[in-house]
């Protein structure tokens, strides 16, 4: 790519468009936002194409000494690349999803979303500790406004809860970061990833980071802000929240907690496992009894994120790769599910499951897409969900078969609540006349759902495209944390290979020749 600062460009395009949107009329703002996000999608594809697989660990690096105390340093590895691509891929879809649903204060709405995009890319691309923190934390402001201004009935309570929960979590992380920067004498993330902190200090630092990432992720029991925020946020807000913002927690674990504090991660893995196991079972059961579609998907997000955390703390390549794929897959699938909810919400203005029914009769195309994403959420082979969950559980099985066992029930329960949801919405009788009259997908909705469906299938059938860019980084991470890796209870031992074929019959003690001796 020569010297073109592509990451800075990706930060600047939405930011400039956001400022422009504040001054434009509604139709102009919509077009500007769509154009800006499409340009960024183009830049994201350029980024992916030019990313050199197996090349240097940090690519597209930029550095400028603009500030005192921290530097403007950008750069990505394979992990960040995929998350950036996920963000820029979802953004135009979010803008399309808000095309007609948002009618008041459109310019400000689009501006908030575009600022959000800048900040998300900034989080994944930041190579300086405090630049990361600023981007990470700044996302609160646009999200607070999106939930508060354009949200549903209880939007004010939800926006407060979202804001204060996440703020409290990340404040402790700031103190830990200050301590680290003071101790290591640098704020450069790649350097810090190689720095060995004293194991006693690691525990405290790890807990401080955990406070932030666990809330963001969100892990049980600090997940309660998520269902509220999801339910009250407009459709596109939910998509971004589930699709990208939750991934910041997982990204934080993979970028900070694991490589910077490997010993503490190993010592406190039990905490992660315990919380994740509870989360998988409890939130799946809660999802099973929801009457509100968005709430159901929100709880399923918590359950899926628990699979991510156990995968991350499995300390092996399968677990880490699986966690990454679950994150990417969940970003696509839960985003798509929220879009599916949004499609029918726009028509009937209710999220009550009981108000729908038999939609596959009058909305067959919609039902097909919805089915695909339901299956992907369950983790059906051939969809992206399967690859990620399989790898994660395979990884965790090597560490603890009990954790693997409990987490695997999440897949069964997932099938239960997702199929139950799908059955109530799409199959059965058409109970309500107004639901039965709803028209099928229009072109705009097609354009939103089809790309995600394609990506879900691509990731399910040929995950190598997504595994290849991050293989080196995962391997490097695994090598870094190997010294602290727990032993695990599985003791996988390869059996001795037999020389003969598996169905060979052992010669009987009495040979045919001896038979005649009788």
């Amino acid at each position: 790519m020569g010297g073109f600062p592509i990451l800075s460009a990706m930060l600047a395009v939405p930011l400039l468009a956001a400022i422009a949107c504040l001054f434009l009329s509604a139709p102009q703002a919509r077009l500007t936002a769509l154009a800006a996000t499409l340009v960024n999608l183009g830049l994201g594809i350029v980024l992916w194409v030019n990313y050199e697989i197996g090349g240097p660990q940090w690519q597209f690096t930029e550095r400028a000494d603009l500030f005192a105390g921290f530097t403007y340093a950008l750069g990505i590895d394979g992990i960040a690349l995929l998350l950036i691509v996920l963000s820029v891929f979802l953004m135009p879809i979010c803008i399309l999803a808000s095309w007609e649903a948002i009618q008041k204060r459109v310019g400000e709405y689009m501006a908030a979303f575009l600022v959000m995009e800048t900040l998300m890319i900034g989080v994944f691309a930041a190579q300086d500790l405090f630049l990361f923190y600023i981007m990470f934390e700044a996302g609160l402001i646009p999200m607070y406004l999106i939930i508060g201004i354009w949200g549903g009935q209880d939007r004010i309570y939800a926006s407060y809860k979202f804001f204060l929960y996440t703020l409290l979590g990340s404040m402790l992380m700031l103190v830990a970061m200050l301590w680290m920067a003071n101790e290591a004498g640098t704020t450069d993330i790649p350097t810090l990833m190689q720095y060995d902190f004293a194991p006693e200090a690691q525990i405290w630092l790890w807990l401080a980071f955990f406070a932030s990432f666990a809330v963001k992720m969100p892990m049980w029991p600090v997940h309660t802000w998520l269902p509220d925020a999801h339910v009250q946020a407009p459709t596109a807000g939910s998509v971004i929240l589930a699709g990208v913002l939750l991934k910041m927690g997982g990204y934080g674990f993979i970028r900070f907690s694991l490589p910077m504090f490997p010993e503490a991660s190993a010592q406190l893995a039990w905490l992660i496992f315990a919380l994740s196991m509870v989360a998988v079972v409890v939130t799946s059961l809660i999802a099973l009894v929801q009457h509100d579609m968005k709430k159901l998907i929100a709880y399923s997000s918590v359950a899926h994120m628990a699979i991510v955390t156990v995968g991350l703390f499995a300390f092996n390549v399968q677990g880490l790769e699986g966690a990454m794929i679950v994150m990417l897959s969940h970003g696509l699938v839960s985003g798509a599910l929220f879009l599916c909810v949004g499609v029918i919400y726009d028509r009937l203005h209710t999220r009550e499951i009981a108000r729908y029914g038999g939609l596959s009769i009058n909305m067959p195309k919609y039902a097909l897409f919805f089915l695909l994403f339901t299956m992907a959420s369950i983790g059906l082979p051939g969809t992206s969900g399967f690859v990620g969950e399989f790898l994660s559980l395979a990884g965790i099985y090597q560490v603890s078969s009990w954790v693997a066992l409990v987490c695997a029930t999440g897949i069964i329960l997932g099938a239960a609540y997702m199929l139950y949801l799908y059955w109530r919405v799409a199959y059965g009788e058409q109970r309500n006349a107004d639901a039965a009259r709803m028209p099928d997908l229009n072109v705009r909705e097609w354009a939103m759902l089809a790309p995600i469906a394609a990506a879900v299938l691509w990731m399910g059938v040929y995950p190598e495209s997504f595994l290849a860019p991050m293989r080196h980084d995962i391997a490097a991470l695994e090598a870094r944390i190997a010294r602290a890796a727990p032993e695990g209870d599985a003791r996988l031992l390869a059996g001795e290979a037999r020389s003969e074929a598996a169905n060979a019959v052992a010669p009987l003690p009495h040979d045919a020749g001896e038979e005649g001796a009788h």
Partner: protein
Amino acid sequence: MDMSASFALIAPELVLAAFSLLLVLASAWGGDRAARTVSIIAVVGLFAAGMLLFPVLHLGKVGPETWAFGDLIRADAFGAAAKALIYLAAIGCLVVAPHWFGRIGAMKPEFAVLVLLATLGMSLMVSASDLLTLYLGLELNSLAAYVLAAYLRNDSRSAEAGLKYFVLGALASGILLYGMSLIYGFAGTTSFAGIREAMTGPMSNGLLFGLIFVLAGLAFKISAVPFHMWTPDVYEGAPTPVTTFFATAPKVAAVALTARVALDAFGGQVDAWRQVVIFAALASIVVGALGAIGQNNLKRLLAYSSINNVGFILIGLAAASAAGASAMFVYLAIYVAMTLGSFVALMMLHAPDGRALETFDDIAGLSTKRPALAWCLLAQMFSLAGIPPLLGFWGKFVVFQAAVQAGLVVLAAIGVAASVIGAFYYIKFVKVMFFDTASDTAVADSTRAQWAVLALTTLIVSPLGYLLNRSFADLGDKAASALFLLP
């Protein structure tokens, strides 16, 4: 050092004194018609005095070459940096005040004169290196401030604020004087350098008492908990331009003075006062945050916010290091911009009939009526709450960094956790302006001067402000070096 060199060192103060005396005459002869002219000349005077600070700031002058009148006054980089902030804040207040007073027919030339005299007092405060100079500056500032608080003499709230401020301020001055007399008695000198020398080694109880009383008196001036009770009442009662002034310039002066007293005069006995400062810091953060939650009046709310902010500044002082003093300066600079911005926005909120809009109910749905004003206030509030990417975050960042570097990790952790409580009422501000349905009160147009100050301060607290943080850090380091001449 001869007399002329000493006079050269206090040139900014001389300019201010000359301008204020001149303007007293001008207002006596010109009457109310001269009000606008007097304000303009006062701004010119402040600007001229500020220009004289440049050489000291630029070269970062510290040490004996800056000591005037036999070390009664130190015109060093620390004083100059604080003065620059004070003058800027005073200019900001003078620029926006005439329209506000003019609206209610109360614009008089005395306002500018009083502001100028108060500023002169503050100039002396931040340069003081002797208990006598300290007291002289403090009282000059306070007397002008008492009159300013009661400036609208027909308004009972303003008169009450003035009286309250005067009585409690006199009490605080008494406490301060008592502490100073104890220190003089036990140290045998009033000069900071002498006190520092007398305090080496084990400290006598008399000195300790003196130190505590002096700090208590100063805590009143910076409105740190537990000496904060006057703040909400005075801020609410005083006319808004005066409140703006109180919340910015005198705060800078008092904090700078406290820093000089603690780090210079008492610098040899850090452990003697650190606990006091830590307590005041945490108590201010918590009380400032909790007290604001129930408020419906915006001026009271911002008063609690300023108590809250003082707590964060004191964390920088508790670090008792050059980094801490530098962080305090950076925080003060950002604090002045934020406070000036938010109070100017409050001043711009008035109904067409002249009634000031001062409660949450009045600003409900402001974003649909005056979007530009609402967005500026949003930036100021998130900045005050310390949410990145706004510059208010950077102020908190540097003080916590200094605390962590000084080994006060627990203090920093408690401080940041408590700042979440404060975030609650700042985001309530945003909630009322953006999420609530609009009230039917109209908001009158604002003047260009008000818009200019608001736009400038908003630009500073916006992410663009981070481009300034190099200059802030540079200035802060130069200033801090003046307080750490001795090991």
